[in-house]
């Protein structure tokens, strides 16, 4: 059977997110509890977590989480990294053996920073330099896969139910101000860890529930700009589109939401002149990045989180607030289990982005 990346696999899912606007760091227990409620929305073939604010002692370095299928792949990747980066620290990511998680690859973590003279010669900024290096590893080193590569954040994912993945990675030992989680229900058994969510590039992580019908149009469009979609998953393509639009085109996340879940022309036509012009421009300029078909996504980024539904709201997505904490989930139950009495609970409309960021005074 072909593994993920050789064949496109559709999947249903559960997603959940917790964001502490005051920058308060909480352990992974809550997010595990939340996603576990939606056990039957996944089928044991993929689960994962993204956490922000977990590496304060290394917050100025890029944190790489990497899967290796062999020692040879590790050696080759380390040689590759060593030539281009200063490796500040490296270690195996600590895991807890559990019978429900098997076939684990070698899982390593590196804190790195680009070698200054190479960075200067490359005429790139450090984000672009690092993202190119990681895309190159994924693209060209057999058996190596960079799971995440942002600063002060990391992705923990595996084949299994999300609550078991949480135990495996001991996520209760990490403390972050922002957490997202994913439980996957793919329509066949790829058994490849990299295929699980979250998907990430630099600080951006995406968990996604849905199957986009515009996939190949979006993939072929974003591949023009130097991305290569190795996994053939929707989440990967959404992540790259967001990276392209924010980092390379300079759009805000709200503007991104108006591109990928663009309002219908009929909606645009009743806006005031200024807004009509702005929204029409975004649709015309970035028409290849309109995403159709069902999706609900949680996008994690440095200091914030965005929740977004497709414009017809073909997937469930619930949001809630309690004090300084914001919750998102596929199901209300998954929020109630960790916050019984939220101040406010609502279902964001299709195409309406909910964006939360850290309060300024939080001092991050």
């Amino acid at each position: 059977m072909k593994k993920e990346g050789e064949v496109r696999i559709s999947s249903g899912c559960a997603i959940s997110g917790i964001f502490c606007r005051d920058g308060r760091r909480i352990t992974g227990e809550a997010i595990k509890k939340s996603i576990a409620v939606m056990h039957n929305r996944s089928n044991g073939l993929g689960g994962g977590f993204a956490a922000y604010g977990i590496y304060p002692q290394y917050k100025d370095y890029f944190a790489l989480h990497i899967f290796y299928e062999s020692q040879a792949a590790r050696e080759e990747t380390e040689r590759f990294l060593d030539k281009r980066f200063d490796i500040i620290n490296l270690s195996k990511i600590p895991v807890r053996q559990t019978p429900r998680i098997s076939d684990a690859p070698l899982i390593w973590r590196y804190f790195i920073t680009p070698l200054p003279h190479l960075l200067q010669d490359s005429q790139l900024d450090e984000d672009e330099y690092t993202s190119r290096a990681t895309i190159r590893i994924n693209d060209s080193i057999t058996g190596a896969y960079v799971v995440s590569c942002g600063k002060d954040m990391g992705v923990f994912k595996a084949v299994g139910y999300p609550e078991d993945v949480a135990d495996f990675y001991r996520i209760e030992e990490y403390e972050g101000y922002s957490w997202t989680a994913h439980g996957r229900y793919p329509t066949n058994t790829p058994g490849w860890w990299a295929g699980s969510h979250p998907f990430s590039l630099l600080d951006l992580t995406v968990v996604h529930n849905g199957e986009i019908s515009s996939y190949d149009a979006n993939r072929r469009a974003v591949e023009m700009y130097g991305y290569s979609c190795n996994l053939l998953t929707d989440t990967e393509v959404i992540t790259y589109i967001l990276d392209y639009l924010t980092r390379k085109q300079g759009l805000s996340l709200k503007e991104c939401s108006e591109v990928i879940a663009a309002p219908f022309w009929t909606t645009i036509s009743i806006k005031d002149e200024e807004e009509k012009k702005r929204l029409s421009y975004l649709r015309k300029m970035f028409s290849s990045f309109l995403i159709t078909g069902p999706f609900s996504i949680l996008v994690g980024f440095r200091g914030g989180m965005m929740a977004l539904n497709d414009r017809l709201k073909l997937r469930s997505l619930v949001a809630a607030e309690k004090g300084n904490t914001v919750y998102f989930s596929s199901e209300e139950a998954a929020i109630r289990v960790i916050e019984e009495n939220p101040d406010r609970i609502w279902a964001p409309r299709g195409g309406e982005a909910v964006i939360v960021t850290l309060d300024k005074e939080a001092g991050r």
Partner: protein
Amino acid sequence: MRRYRIRKDESCISCLRCVSECSFGAIEKGTDRSLVFHHDKCTDCQRCVSFCPTGAIYIMEDENRFRQNSVFREDDIREILLQAETGGVLLSSMGASGKSVPIYFDKLLLNASQVTNPSIDPLREPMETAVFLGQRPEGIQRDQNGNIVDNLPPHLELKTPIMFSAMSYGAISLNVHKALAAAAEELGTYWNTGEGGLHESLYPYKENTIVQVASGRFGVHGTYLNTAAAIEIKIGQGAKPGIGGHLTGKKIIGDVSKTRMVPEGLDAISPAPHHDIYSIEDLAQLVMSIKEATHYTKPVIVKAAAVHNIAPIASGIARSGADIISIDGYRGGTGAAPKRIRDNVGIPIELAIAAVDQRLREERIRDRVSIIASGGIRNSSDAVKAIALGADAVSIGTAALCALGCHICASCHTGRCAWGLATQDPVLTGRLDPEKGAARLVNLVNAWTREIKEIMGGMGINSIEALKGNRLALRGVDLNAKELEVLGIGYAGE
């Protein structure tokens, strides 16, 4: 040389309607209201059949056949005999008839949503078919307040991804132009003048008109260029790549002469190349000249025939400053072309779109230009497949003429079109009522648009831009590995 045989049965009431309808002289009145059939003049245009009040007339393939062998077929023999008699180049019209060249559209199958994502009902949910054609800048700009500045060059806005192909006044009648223009206006799409200029009576349709500049420069003047939504530079035509045009002096009469700016009775000859474009940098100069002449307010389209190296040609066009590339495939129609050229030169539009779209993506300039595909688009599913292969929109010529009555007898080059389309004979052109014609064109395009929405909805796609280049929506059958590779699609079941 007889090809068809005209027959009538006993229900004929000798009303002689067929005699007056036949423009080819195949049916004449004999003595005592009897009918005389000149079978050799019949083109099987079906005009008499359509108008016979009692259904008494039949046009059959003649049962007398040439003896064929495994090499020389009926048409080969007929053509040899004709050329031996006349010493001339064989003329033909409509699209190519290379029977062993596959129609790839028929070998592509579309996808639909099942279980893992929902199909969308176009009667209940919005389904968007609007397309914008034109250039896109590489990046956004913001003003000092951080607001996005509209830096998009002028675009064409189509309510449906179907437009009308270039057909010139001269090749077709003014009434056809009127019907196309009125239909384009009502549909919110565009019609194209072709190379014969724009009749003054059609100036009010300016917002929906694309004017063409071809190698003969017929009817090209400042007002012409500015009485349009876009200007198309015609380099080639799918039916006759590499060949110019020749409108006989017989058709250069009255308003045709005036509109084309060619003296009455003089042949209007379009040279094979533009004599000011011998290379790609010359094209860039013409594109810019036209933009200067129209004050950068209109997109410029460059139309080329699908030939072997269409991908690099398209790349060159994309870099010439053109906003839109129009590619006309092997099966594209014509009012007149040498038969050998029509049937043997160029490549099918399906392969051309796939190759061009892929090439422009590899060069990272696909988002910079838009692509219009034409040449053998017969129905809405052809249009959907063309867009999924990578076109932004399609244009239709022959299908539009069919809506106006054409029965594809492929005798346009005779100038005797019995349906009053490809002719300048005032008696014949009067047969098309432009208003009724426009209504039929509107019906056709609306019907196709409904079908496109239905197909898109089935695939769970609610906006046409999400279909563009979405090749996963396609699978092939009866295709070899190389064909699949060029088309960039998988085999059915894969």
